[in-house]
């Protein structure tokens, strides 16, 4: 599996979807990311990333119910597909393997 088609921001968004399921939609994801990273994240960026992920088949979406605070508009709810889950696991195991190979003194020097 080529992993180059999963950008860093997309990976984070995909992870967040996994975390927030079944109530994952762009506003919530953007806020979650803001909280986690401390940086402002716009819903537009998140939404665009979600569209790309959906095209690649890592997430699917359905239209949810309408709420008053959205002016009576429906929201699009996202869930991670099996393919998306496997990609996440792959990414993670690659990282884990690399982390494990780092010699402990090196890690100390960073802090």
């Amino acid at each position, binding site marked *: 599996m080529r992993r180059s088609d999963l950008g860093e921001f997309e990976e984070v968004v995909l992870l967040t979807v996994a975390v927030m399921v079944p109530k994952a939609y762009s506003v919530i994801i953007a806020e979650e990311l803001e909280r986690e990273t401390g940086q402002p994240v716009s819903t537009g960026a998140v939404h665009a990333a979600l569209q790309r992920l959906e095209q690649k088949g890592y997430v699917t979406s359905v239209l949810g119910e309408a709420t008053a605070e*959205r002016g009576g508009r429906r929201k699009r709810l996202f869930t991670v597909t099996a393919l998306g889950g496997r990609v996440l696991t792959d990414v993670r195991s690659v990282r884990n393997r690399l982390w494990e190979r780092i010699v402990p003194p090196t890690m100390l020097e960073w802090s």
Partner: protein
Amino acid sequence: MKPPRIPDKLLTWLIAPHLREEVLGDRHERFFRQAERLGETRARRRYWRDALAYVRPAFINRKSSAYPQPTNTDMIRNYFKVAFRNLVKNRVYSFINIFGLASGMAVAMLIGLWVYDELSYDKHNKNYDRIGMLWQFVSFGPEKSPYDVMPIPLAAELRNKYPDFESVSLSVFRKAILTTGDQKFAKTGSYVEPDYTGIFSLNMLAGSRFGSDDVNAVLLAKSVSEAIFGSADPINKLVKVDNKQSAKVVGVYEDFPSNSAFKDVFFLAPWKLFAAIDDGAKRDQNEWDSNSYQVYVQLKPGADFDAVSAKIKDIRMKRDNPPRYKPEFFLHPMSKWHLYRDFKNGVNTGGIIVFVWLFGAIGIIVLLLACINFMNLSTARSEKRAKEVGIRKAIGSVRAQLIYQFFSESLLMALLAFALAFVFVQLTLPFFNQVSEKKMTILWSNPWFWLAGLGFSLFTGLIAGSYPALYLSSFQPVKVLKGTLRANRFATIPRKVLVSFQFTVSVTLMIGTIIVFRQIEHAKNRSVGYNRNGLIEISMNTPELYGHYGTLRDDLRATGAVDEMSESSGSVTVQYGGTTDFTWKGKTPNTSPLIMSNFVTHDYGKTVGWQVKEGRDFSREFSTDSSAIILNEAAVKLMGFKNSGRRTAIGQPIRRNGRDYTVIGVIRDMIKEDPFKPVNPSFFALDYRSVNVINIKLASQLPVNEALAKVEQVFRTYSPAAPFDYKFVDETYAEKFGTEERIGKLAGVFASLAVLISCLGLFGLASFMAEQRTKEIGIRKVLGASVFTIWGLLSKEFVVLLVIAFCLGAPVAYYVLSDWLQNYEYRTELSWWIFAASGLGALVITLLTVSFQSIRVALVNPVKSLRSE
């Protein structure tokens, strides 16, 4: 608390419809959440910034349609198939539609070519912007009259004293007889100074131009060189000019194009040769007041025509003995030679440019008529296709497809018409060239021509197709198919307006044509003052013809083919010049009216058949007649002589050029000049030396060709070298009407085409209306209506339109044509019957057109029209 509205609007407009809901929802929810956390002000600011994150293709690109997308060629093929089926099914309408539009386009193309040709006159010259011709205004009476003839010394004056001129050339246009061996050719050409070849950048095909020292040299146009020498090399061959001087051919130049001021210049000979052979030129060499020659100039770059004109204006008046007629010289730039030739009292008043505008306008109008037809018929027919629209929509056509369909259909028709128009133009161009006396061709290689033609076809197609495409495609299929959709009662109004407009134009053009022809007839019927029948003229262009007046006349009369012969200065249909040196008893001092001079022999009056009103003709019985003078009525009127009493004209002393004369007779006015103008005051005096034209009255009892053969034989014995080159006076006289007749013919052709196109449209519309009302007519007949009432019912509508159109068109025609007639001093009246006749004519044509259809429908058995549903 509400989110800011402007970014919302922007996003609504920007974002693809299928994403709009979720995006706007997201934006609002986020806003409220942020407002809770950060306060409204910051939330608003964030809102603006975050909105920008949506400006990316992922949100803007529209999702492709949910419907299946057949490949475009399939659908277009279907459109064309349906279009062709429609064309074939409604053969008559298709024919009327395409034929009408094609003829309109063809007319517009022809006129376009004509206008193009007129506007391109002389443009081929390299120095177009810097070439000018000398003109002068002279004042014989209260008004300034323009003349394009100059005195010879003016050329040297301009060349030597005015630095604005790059080159200056004298020129004189003559018909000359060129002889080689025993071959004789009468050709027109010019005697010019060497600078001429440079000014007009002569394109030499062989040999070289003549230099300033050459006298006996000549340049030939290619066509003449080929006529004289065939394929042999003409250079250094000798030709004899007017049987007087031999000249060596030094070069051959490319003929001037047909849209050049010099298109009839077939040879160019040095001015010095002219000065050597022409007595007038010898005499006028230093004569400032003898105006007979053209002067062409080329200005230096940057010099301005008006400024130079101002400098040279008073050249003559500053010299000694300024003449009474106060000449004012000025430059006429080449760009105005052809189109702006008319002057009135010292001001340029246009010229042919008026006709360029007029025909341009007619072309556009005829084209407009054709377009109106096309649109009217297309829209009328398309209402029949409402059902088709309904079915197509029910099957799943979206509106855009229907729009494409109708547009492609009308574009197809317009392009077919365009192609057909080419065929028409190609076929009629020879005829059109003949009428307009031009040599035009379709501008196959001119991209602008194609661009204009195709652009116009597209435009017509789009306009004509816009009604069905945009209106019909908006129908709701349910309503159409159920039949509850009714055409609006006002839907026919634009069509009626267009038809009235057509009628207006047709009526105006009809009236215009009639009046143009009446004006020509009016001038033709004017009493000419001499008898043109069997009168021929031969110009005396070889020296052998001079000096044998008596014997020549006797020999000619002895043949029995000639009634009378005389000689005169200039043709009877041309007035060469006049004099202001003319005094009579009772002349107001310090005035110098121009009196036209004519020098004739004793037998002139009998030959041309002038009508002596008072006194007598010249006669050999009176030896005193060498100082006798005959005046025309206009001269008598000018001099204020009366019919009887002490102030009678006969016997009045006249002083001219330092000689005394006595008036012996008064003749009726002879139209030697413009038949649309009053005759100028003229005198006739005997002078056997100033003559250059032989007038011959053929005997009426002999057939013309026999008589001519006999006359030719006599001429052969006197002048074997010159070709027997004669002209019939009635033909030369008819040429005076050339311009008017050309305009009349063209206007006639265009007017009848306009009427024809209108009729085609009317026919189509009438048959369509009749067809639409078949059921109504059936029911009316069942209820007892007669054929006549039904005919009246169907025709009434169009007659009303015609009446409205006539009320609009007649005043327009009146206004335009009374303006046109103002150009002529001798003009016909705009009598009421012309208008009445045109109106009646239009009415008859309309009724004929409409009746054909309405009677056909009225005759149909109601059982047939009501049976089928």
